[in-house]
């Protein structure tokens, strides 16, 4: 049973990787298992300058999901390269850098510095939790095209664009990114949501709104990937509520070539190695003999 997947810049021995922001830079989960079990790692968002992020509370729980408004807290691209990446460099697995910014220039500065150190970039144009630096690029096809084009100019590695589900027409966004030169798509980032603290009569999160993730959003992720798949020829990394090898297969069938797991790591820190171990059996049960065979399988 082959779990291998070949994507631009990425030779994955299996299609499972942590979703950006849910795995920091790997050190913590390395206490639980050998990171080389994973197909790749997507690192926490990096910005040009350090960011403190939002005030707490930063997370809330919802039915089968959670809201987060971390707000891109990170030590800045330089410290990430010098302080955080040396640990990851001790592993053989491919590294993907998630980069964010408030302006195309910030994106390109960060991309320029980061790209020599990783196998691919994931352009985060979909963070709903910061005033500047993210979602405005992810909800307007023109702004998105522009930032993709500029980053492509400076990046030494393939560029995946992480799309926001908070749009009327996800297909339009995907096609705009492909035409601007994206090598792949990541889908989906979180859906903007809110919880109200009844005791205090105000939004629970300090940032008011947060991004909804977890099993609650899986049907939305599957729908969007299924919608986009026939319209693009670049591969899709799927995410949103994945917690089992059966979920992974559902994403592959919808059109994802690989997947990322976020919220489920908090539920069960061993979830990714467990999924990877279960995947061959699940594929076999449903009549597949490799991961690649299942990709887009629901479209034929």
């Amino acid at each position, binding site marked *: 049973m082959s779990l291998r997947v070949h994507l631009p810049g990425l030779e994955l021995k299996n299609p499972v990787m942590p979703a950006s922001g*849910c795995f920091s830079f790997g050190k913590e989960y390395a206490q639980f298992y050998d990171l080389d079990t994973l197909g790749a790692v997507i690192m926490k968002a990096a910005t040009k300058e350090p960011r403190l992020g939002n005030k*707490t509370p930063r997370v809330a*729980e919802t039915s089968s999901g959670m809201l*987060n408004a971390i707000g891109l*807290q990170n030590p800045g691209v330089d410290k990430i390269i010098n302080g955080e990446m040396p640990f990851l460099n001790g592993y053989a697995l491919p590294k993907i850098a998630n980069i964010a910014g408030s302006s195309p220039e910030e994106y390109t500065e960060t991309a320029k510095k980061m790209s020599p150190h990783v196998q691919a970039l994931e352009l985060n144009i979909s963070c709903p939790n910061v005033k500047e630096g993210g979602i405005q690029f992810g909800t307007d096809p023109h702004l998105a095209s522009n930032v993709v084009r500029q980053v492509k100019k400076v990046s030494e590695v393939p560029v995946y664009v992480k799309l926001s589900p908070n749009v009327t027409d996800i297909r339009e966004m995907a096609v705009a990114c492909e035409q601007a030169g994206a090598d792949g798509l990541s889908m989906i980032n979180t859906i903007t949501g809110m919880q109200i603290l009844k005791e205090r009569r105000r939004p629970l999160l300090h940032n008011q709104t947060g991004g909804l993730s977890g099993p609650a959003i899986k049907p939305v992720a599957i729908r969007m990937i299924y919608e986009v798949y026939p319209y693009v020829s670049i591969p899709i990394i799927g995410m949103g509520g994945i917690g089992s090898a059966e979920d992974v297969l559902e994403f592959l069938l919808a059109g994802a070539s690989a997947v990322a797991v976020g919220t489920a790591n*908090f539920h069960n820190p061993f979830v990714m190695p467990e999924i990877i171990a279960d995947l061959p059996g699940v594929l076999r049960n449903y009549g597949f003999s490799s991961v690649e065979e299942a990709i887009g399988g629901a479209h034929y």
Partner: protein
Amino acid sequence: MKVVNHREISECTYEITLQTDVFFPAEPGQFVHILVDPPHQLRRPLSLASSSGGEITVVYKTFGEGTRTLTNKKRGDTVNVLGPLGNGFTLPEQEKVMLVGGGVGVPPLLWLAKELHKDGKKVSAVLGFKSVNQVFYRREMEEYAEVTVVTDDGSSGEKGLVTKWLDPEADVYYACGPNPMLKALEAQLAIPGYNSMEERMGCAIGACFACTVETTDDGYVNVCKDGPVFPKGRVKLP
């Protein structure tokens, strides 16, 4: 982990004892991250009230839906536990130690008291509760410390806030309770001390940055990994 014992020890406050299936090297001040049944996605951080002989004990208050769900666990059921997590209390050099606990802040201090007592320290404990129905672990604490119980309404022990009934003799303190209590103690006490903090958590291992708190000198740190215990003055209490 298998439930060995589970009982209500005071109003809405439960003590659950679990059998650790594996080696579980914990110390007072550390916490565990407990999974509750679906549709709950996040675990619940709860302080260890003790860990010894292959068993751990946790005391929790039913605050919201997750902890209410936890009360359904019966002896013999299993509970998925992640831990021990976070740092523990740094044991003091000083001789006269005061423990200040509010509500479910008391349990980790009971364990600490036991250790301090073993070390021959002179321990006093000021335990604050809403009212007499909520008091617990008084007798247990009296084995290791000079105890003052304080209730908001005076229905048991002294009346008022713990900050009115502190031990003037102490030369170091350990506090565990709501942030306003920690803040009031910091303002009032000149002696060094340690605060055990609470913050909403995602991963509880330092990977998601849900539980950040600002330090007075060095940006943000994570309560789950760099805490939950911080020396007085290290972080800006929210």
